[in-house]
């Protein structure tokens, strides 16, 4: 990151290779839509590029980039919420919603469905700590809350997940 701030284009390639898969995975989990996730990835890197001068030397890069990605997602969602109609690029009406997912047959499907059923705050805390791999402290920074709150959300989220997966195990 510091070499990129110094104007080294090759350093950006290294940074992009390291950050982009994690950010893309995170954005894809937030949006559940590949095209939107790629748009947001572009917005995120544009913001990283513009804000590189304010990056504090020695600070961890991944939480900084994840926080920018999350804020980009929230801004985009807020903007979409105030639009009256979400037309596609050619001006046609949006496609009807996909049908409800089929019943899970494997544990991984059940986990995905159970994660989607969680309240947003619990899901975000679990995704950042368990899937994206941030520490509790880093996740708290990204979510703009305290470490205790993150631990509490993860704990409560786990309890709900445990119930959902337990019922799946019993039915199979």
């Amino acid at each position, binding site marked *: 990151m510091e070499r990129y701030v110094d104007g080294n284009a090759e350093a950006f*390639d290294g940074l992009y290779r390291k950050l982009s898969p994690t950010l893309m995975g995170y954005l894809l989990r937030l949006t559940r839509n590949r095209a939107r996730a790629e748009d947001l990835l572009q917005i995120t890197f544009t913001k990283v590029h513009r804000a590189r001068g304010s990056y504090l030397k020695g600070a961890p890069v991944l939480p900084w980039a994840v926080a920018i990605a999350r804020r980009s997602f929230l801004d985009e969602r807020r903007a979409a919420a105030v639009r009256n109609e979400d037309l596609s690029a050619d001006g046609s009406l949006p496609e009807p919603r996909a049908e409800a997912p089929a019943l899970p047959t494997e544990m991984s499907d059940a986990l995905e469905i159970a994660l989607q059923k969680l309240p947003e705050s619990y899901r975000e805390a679990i995704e950042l700590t368990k899937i994206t791999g941030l520490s509790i402290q880093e996740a708290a920074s990204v979510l703009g809350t305290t470490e205790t709150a993150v631990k509490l959300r993860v704990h409560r989220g786990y309890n709900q997940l*445990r119930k959902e997966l337990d019922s799946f195990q019993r039915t199979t």
Partner: protein
Amino acid sequence: MTQKDPLADLAWPGATVAPSDECSKAIRGACTKGLCQQRGVSAMTRGLLTLGLCVLVLAYYFWYAVADHRPSAIVRTGVFGAIGWLGAQAVLVFATLARPPGKRGSRGLRVALLLGVPLAFVGYLHFVSTEQFAFSKFTQGYPAGHAIGCGLVALFFGALVAGGAMIAWRRTDPYSPGISGAIIGMVGGLASGAGMSLACPSHEAFHACFAHGMVVFALAILGFGVGRRMLAP
């Protein structure tokens, strides 16, 4: 029979997904075009810039007080108060915005200071007041007009400090820009509110608390909104 915990040995979904080549190409193009060295100022310099703005505003208020021949006792009290609150501003800037080499204070500390410091400031203004009108007298005629005038002047100079500090700290906080903005607004309000004790001839309790003290609350709230826009990358 004990049942196995469903979360034990669970295969969590993968964290990484590769973006498409077109997307990667577009990002590389945008982020490496005309790339040049860009070394921003350190957290310490940003903090000192913020405090420098506070000192400038206080110096202006002091100059005004001396030029307008304020009684020396009032100026002396005002100077001690302003210097004391300048210390508080320095602690706020370095403890909550950027402790060298750039760590921010915890969220709990930041929120507690954001709630506690304006109340402490109003308490201080009430404590150093030398007289107190009846509230009905304060809200009518000259006292009310004077309070509105003082409040607007304090708001103007506080906004100058807070605006300058916002520029100094812009795009530095993707985590909680609203809270950082509120703290910057509060620091600007404290500089202007404390400076008004020098420039304003009235040391009446209601006047001091409303006209000089409310600027801290107003700029903290304003800073919260502006900070969300300016301080986030």
